[in-house]
């Protein structure tokens, strides 16, 4: 099947994106919002999930293959393989849970260093669940500072209210395109 899609591509570019971050920060919800514009409580991802999305950007048809990984530690050894060849990596944290933010530098940034085979891979930091503004514990400034330190793009968004979700993927793809 995939070979047929290779022989007659209906797209100009294929990009591989990866989503990582602690369990429960809303990676799958973000992805669901982006790919089918819906929001529902999802079962925790088992290992890995995968979605395809066609987008048109600057007149070019892009096929995005987005890998959504499970945040549980048990799956971490497995997910290492999905870092391979990823052109963009989205690091997601929950603005209402500080540990999900601190784990980015303690755990996830290290995983990227360890497993990413693509030197020019673009990283993006995403703070999710900004709809719960009254429960927020990680400020926007902290997010910006982190992004600056690790050289990432940065955006805050909400999978629930749709705020910034489109922009998040689009900005990343644009950067991958033109870098």
């Amino acid at each position, binding site marked *: 099947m995939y070979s047929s899609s290779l022989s007659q591509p209906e797209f100009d570019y294929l990009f591989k994106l990866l989503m990582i971050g602690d369990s429960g920060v809303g990676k799958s919800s973000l992805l669901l919002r982006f790919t089918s514009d819906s929001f529902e409580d999802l079962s925790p991802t088992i290992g890995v999930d995968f*979605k*395809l999305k066609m987008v048109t950007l600057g007149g070019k048809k892009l096929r995005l293959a987005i890998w959504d990984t499970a945040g549980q530690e048990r799956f971490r050894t497995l997910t290492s393989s*999905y870092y391979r060849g990823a052109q963009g990596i989205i690091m997601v944290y929950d603005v209402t849970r500080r540990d999900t933010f601190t784990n980015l530098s303690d755990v996830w940034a290290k995983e990227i260093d360890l497993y990413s085979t693509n030197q020019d891979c673009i990283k993006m930091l995403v703070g999710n669940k900004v709809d719960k503004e009254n429960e927020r514990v990680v400020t926007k400034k902290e997010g910006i500072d982190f992004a600056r330190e690790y050289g990432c793009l940065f955006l805050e968004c909400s999978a629930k209210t749709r705020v910034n979700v489109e922009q998040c993927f689009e900005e990343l793809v644009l950067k991958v395109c033109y870098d």
Partner: protein
Amino acid sequence: MASSSNAKHKRIAEEEEEEEEETLEELEGFDDFTLASSWERFISEIEAICRVWMVDGPKNLVEKGAECLGSQKKLYKVKSEMKHGTKLYSIEYYFCVSNKGKASFWDDDLHDLQLSFGVSDFMVIAPLSASGVVLDAPESTKLLSSVAIALTNCGSGVVLDAPESTKLLSSVAIALTNCGSNWPAFVPVHDPSRKAYIGIQNLGLIFTRRFDADRIGSQVPIRLMHLEGLYELFISKFALYSVDFSASFFKVQFAMKLTYRSPPYESDDEIDSVDPEVNESKGDIVSSNHIKTQWDDDCPWTEWYSAEDPIRGFELVAIWSGRMFESSLEMAELENASSFDAEKWLLCPIIFPFMMDDSTWMFVGFASQIRLLVSALDMSFEAQFLDDFVSAENPASDKSKSSTAIPPPTVLDRVLKEIFHDGGHNSHLVERDNKHSRAIKGAPLESLFAQFCLHSLWFGGCNIRAIASLWIEFVREVRWCWEESQPLPKMPSDSTIDLSTCLIHQKLQMLAICIEKKNSSHDTHNSTESVDHTPSGKKVDAEADPFKEPVKDENGSYLRSYSHQDSEPSTSSSFKHHDYSVRSPDLQKVDQVRKGSAGVVGSMMLLHSYQKMHAPYTQDAPIMTEDMHEERLHAVEVFGDAFSFSGQLERDILSSDMSAFKAANPDAVFEDFIRWHSPGDWENDDTEGCAGDGNNWPPRGKLSQRMSERGNLWRQIWNDSPPLPVLEQKPLLDPIREGEKILHYLETLKPHQLLEQMVCTAFRASADILNQTIYGDFKPMKTRFNQLYITLASTLKPLQANHLREKAELIGDLRRLCLVFEHIEKLLIFAASIHRKLLDVPRLSEAMFSDYFNFYLPKMGTSLESICYDQEFKTKQLVMMHERDAVAILFPPPTANQSWRKVLSMGNLLNGHEPILREIIFSINDRVEDSHYGSSIPMATTEEIQTHRMYIQGTSNDLWVALSVTSWD
């Protein structure tokens, strides 16, 4: 001297020519009646050319494309040609742009004539070479033969004898006077090897400087071998001129430059080591009768080849400058002076020509062998299987000639043995993690496949047939290890697969793990039986644990080292667990059914039974090689775009974890598992949530929304998973099946797939070996080497991609890469050589390296055509005072054996070595009184001018003297 008969021929030829000249003159004469003779015409022609040059001035001449001479871009040359009679003459004007005035005596960049006569700008007029001589009259054909004879005897230039050159010189002198120039002009005399010149320079109106130089090619009188005699020669020259000097003692200025050359390092072994055959395989070097140690014996590449020392030796220049001498006795004294007394020492390495020549046979090293490997890759596309190359009747092998022979079985056996058994390099297995090196998709240096690649580089000239036969034997050996359950040598035993390496290495890693698992599963079988016999699995644990690695159980699984704040450090868990169960006899009942526990999880209690929660041993996540990952990704891409997909494999893992957890905690419920496995999905109601606190029992909490929804996949899997410890579970990875698959891969590998990975690995391993070289702190080298890694990584990247590009383009790229590699390899060898030779003077070695580096740099383009240098590397480095002792070590006193060969004839020995070249400048300055012509002369009245100057250059058997004398006309 050249035979006198030739001289006679020459004479005759010239006479005849002159006759002809006259006849031609008669013919041409009527063209121009204003000039009396062709000679006058000739003079005016010279004059015209000189005027053009004078008007232009140096700056314009440079802009108009004057030829630059020398490396420092100081000296330029313009050239013109003219005809006089039947002869063509070249007239050249040399001029300095910067540094106007006299350069220092011993500037390396000086033109011979500048050095010899102490001039800066000058002209040279010489008859042109044979090709330039135009003989148009039919009569001249008969002359041709005689001219030709004369020419063959003197190389390319037409030879002038003394009277003729005098005539030529005077024409120039007249021309120059006419245009008011004070350029010195020179005319060569005799044949070029004699380097004889005469010259003249007008200095204003009163003075004329005359120049004269000649050479004695052999049988130099002993008197003239010594400073004293040379001094007297100089004195005699100006004593001849009855100049109005006041007294008989003259203050002679003296400067001397002595060049020493260090003795060759291995004079006797030279022929041996040049022979490329010796380098063909590592073993041959060892077995060949080299008793002397090679210079690079302890360099990292010597395991594979022996490099020619790029530094043949050193030239040391010792300079005495600006001394005054008044008597010949002082000169004799100076001759005994040590070269340590010289004012200046300059050192320059003598570079072996292979450093500059890119011809493929000149340099044998990794680069040359990898180039062969690339050719093998080129050929590898011709066949489907590697066996095709080995079998004789294959069309591919028909083309093969003797250059593609397979080495005899004995050699094959020896190499195989080396690959699999030799070398206790295991300590290096944990490589210095070079980030650059990892970016190249090859096998790590000390690994089995890298060793295979390195050996094949030197195996039978690295042709495709030799490689194929070695590979087939290699795979056979690997299969033997598999079937006999022998651990694979030179493979790291940690149970991960490095996906940044090449596929073959990954497969071998996987195979090593499979062999290990195969062995242990065999063991496990026995221990599982014993579990069945014993009522308490606990006891087996307690018995087994002290003899095992604490973290690891028999199945090769790892205890999870979770970073939960409440989990115990895993290393000590088994013992603590044991202690704990002894102290709590009330838990005995549970223990009897508990299986596969790896220890309690901190203070966590099961929700329903108020038992300590036990973490189970779990199965390793199955290891996968790159192609397996890819297969999976494809499968997911094909089937996975449905809603809520999860990979079957991930479900299996989750299910296995749940089974193991159930077995370790017989009373556990789904919530317990979630609290342990995905703590984020358990929400404590109270903020502290301290489960260990008895007052709060049971903890008021609930599953997260997403975990507690109806139809939650996790709960479904939980319900379907039977309680089973890992030992009783179906393994996630079947070692027997996977192992066989790997061997199948290795046995059916396409030739080009093998070669592609070999090329990558060979580049990576060679670079890693070279990178271990110790060469001091040469920054440009380090930078270049890192650049090499980056270039390698980016150029090799497309090599193992699934879709191959245009083959020709690929091979071309790889060949270019070999050239780049060769440059770096040569530079590195040079760096290592100069570093170890000048170990005690790091400043000097560093400076020399960077000189050489800059000299070499223009070659390092990535184009396939090599740039061959005709110029030699001559940049000298000043040796500091405190560095002299260390430099003098380069000139060890000659052994008795060496010293009898030479008769020492010059003085100023350095550690018993006489200079190979001695250059001396004598000069006398005099205060000029301008009594003759009043104030019209250009010089100020009190200016000192050099009245006599003599430049002497000599070795132990020849002597060249150039004299310039200023006189009142």
